């Protein structure tokens, strides 16, 4: 590609690097990223608007949407509480092993989602899990059921909130909290009235990232779910299943919803970045 462009550029009046570099960048991003994104939109509407809307009558699609929402509604609040607790505990303090603890919190980002799912199976599977006996004697079902899927979603998404809030809290000083304490505020009051407002944008940012990832999680949930249509299928699993069953339109319809959510999260992220003062950040969501 580059040599082709180079030989092409020798034939023409020589274009400068200032033209060539953006051109290569745009071509690469166009082929690798933009074309696939357009494919989803065109595939979903391939036969017009009517079948696209009719698809949403599908009972299985509706139950997949509900299950995805359930996992997300468990993971996001739980991880928000953890993220805020971890941030107030860790940020602004220096102690031995702090860097290690921060890496431990980041761990789910480097572990393959499939391995996360495997760990849960080895922990809670009634036949082979470490706690399998306890779980089945209590009559719970965790693996092949929504609690396991929610737990998988929690694990995969828990670093987002903490790693957004910790750096911001580290930049802010102790001064305001100390002032509030001298004026007689309790710990709880200090947290709600001083600490939380000072990191509100980081929390919003963390909420966007956590939600986007929770809605789109595939690998970890796939291992735990057993993939029973209409029962333990989230939206990403539904897309894979529909595609494999050659129910292409249904797959595209579901992909368009999920991709739309991803796009909205990207836009919201950009808006929040503007509000935070143009700090450019980029972190993996999915």
């Amino acid at each position, binding site marked *: 590609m580059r040599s082709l462009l180079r030989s092409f550029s020798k034939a023409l009046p020589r274009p400068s690097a200032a033209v060539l570099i953006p051109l290569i960048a745009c071509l690469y991003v166009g082929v690798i990223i933009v074309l696939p994104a357009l494919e989803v939109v065109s595939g979903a509407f391939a036969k017009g608007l009517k079948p696209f809307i009719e698809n949403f009558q599908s009972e299985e699609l509706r139950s997949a949407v509900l299950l995805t929402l359930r996992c997300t509604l468990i993971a996001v609040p739980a991880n928000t509480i953890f993220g805020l607790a971890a941030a107030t505990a860790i940020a602004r303090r220096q102690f031995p092993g702090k860097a290690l603890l921060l890496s431990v919190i980041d761990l789910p980002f480097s572990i393959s989602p499939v391995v996360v799912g495997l760990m849960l199976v080895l922990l809670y599977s009634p036949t082979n899990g470490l706690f399998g006996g306890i779980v089945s004697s209590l009559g719970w079902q965790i693996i092949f059921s929504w609690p396991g899927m929610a737990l998988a979603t929690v694990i995969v998404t*828990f670093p987002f909130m903490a790693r957004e809030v910790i750096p911001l809290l580290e930049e802010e000083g102790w001064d305001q909290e100390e002032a509030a304490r001298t004026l007689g505020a309790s710990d709880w009051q200090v947290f709600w009235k001083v600490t939380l407002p000072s990191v509100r944008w980081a929390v919003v940012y963390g909420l966007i990232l956590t939600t986007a990832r929770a809605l789109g999680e595939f*690998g970890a949930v796939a291992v735990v779910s057993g993939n029973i249509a209409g029962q333990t299928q989230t939206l990403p699993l539904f897309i894979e299943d529909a595609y494999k069953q050659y129910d292409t339109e249904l797959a595209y319809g579901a992909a368009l919803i999920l991709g739309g959510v991803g796009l909205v999260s990207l836009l919201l992220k950009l808006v929040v970045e503007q509000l935070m003062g143009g700090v450019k950040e980029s972190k993996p969501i999915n």
Partner: protein
Amino acid sequence: MAPALSARRRGFTWPSWLQLSWSWRITWLYLALVLFLPLGALALKAAAVGPSQFWQLATSPEALATYRISFGLAFVAALLNGVFGLVIAWALVRCSFPGRRLLDSLIDLPFALPTAVAGLALAAIYSTNGWLGAPLAALFGIKVSFTWLGVAIAMVFISLPFVVRSVEPVLEALEHDQEEAAWCLGATPRQTLTKVVLPQLMPAILAGVAQGYSRAVGEYGSVVMISSNVPFRDLITPTLIIQKLEEYDFASATVIGMVMLMFSLLSLLVINGLQVWGRNWEANPAQGA
């Protein structure tokens, strides 16, 4: 008042090693339930397999074939993105052209698009009747979807943003003076690039490549849709783990999962090391070299 208070205190006290604030208690409890317990389960189950059987299962021909696919193709994808990521970062920071901000936002799309959606789109577009797959099949006879090439493409897609986002801030902070000095001393543009600019970008490029590599090795969602998942052809390691679980071969799944976990920990170490190197370099380029 005072005695009553102290009596109440005497009634129940946390042991000294548990005298933590609420935020610490929540943090440790949550980490224990959500991270340490599952990690421990995997480690215990892997240890229970026994060393000789562990080695046998970890190096079975089937597993070795998936390592070749996963680790090999992810390496190719990461290198490709190392080169093009640098070009894209350069375009974003050093060039002005119409659509620069749009390009900037598009880079994040692989992070934002759920992997199932990405996989579906890539499989369709590179299938023999897709927008890119059809011309490739007709002109060169190359099949991409449902072959190892498709797996590589999916890995390129999901690991593209890492190098761009890791190089961008370093390139922005790079001072023009040095390049001008090199220029004044008679260096050609190529010499300036290879002797002045690239060495300073190297830590950031390598950190981005390592992050992309680690991500591509662990990726499941998008790869499973574009691969035919046939052992010895294009089956990746994460999919093999799932297949082993479906066959109730828990020992194999555990062992291969443990191999992947150890790889993740190693790559985390390498990435952290590279980032420290990069920061040292920024602080003191002479010593960093």
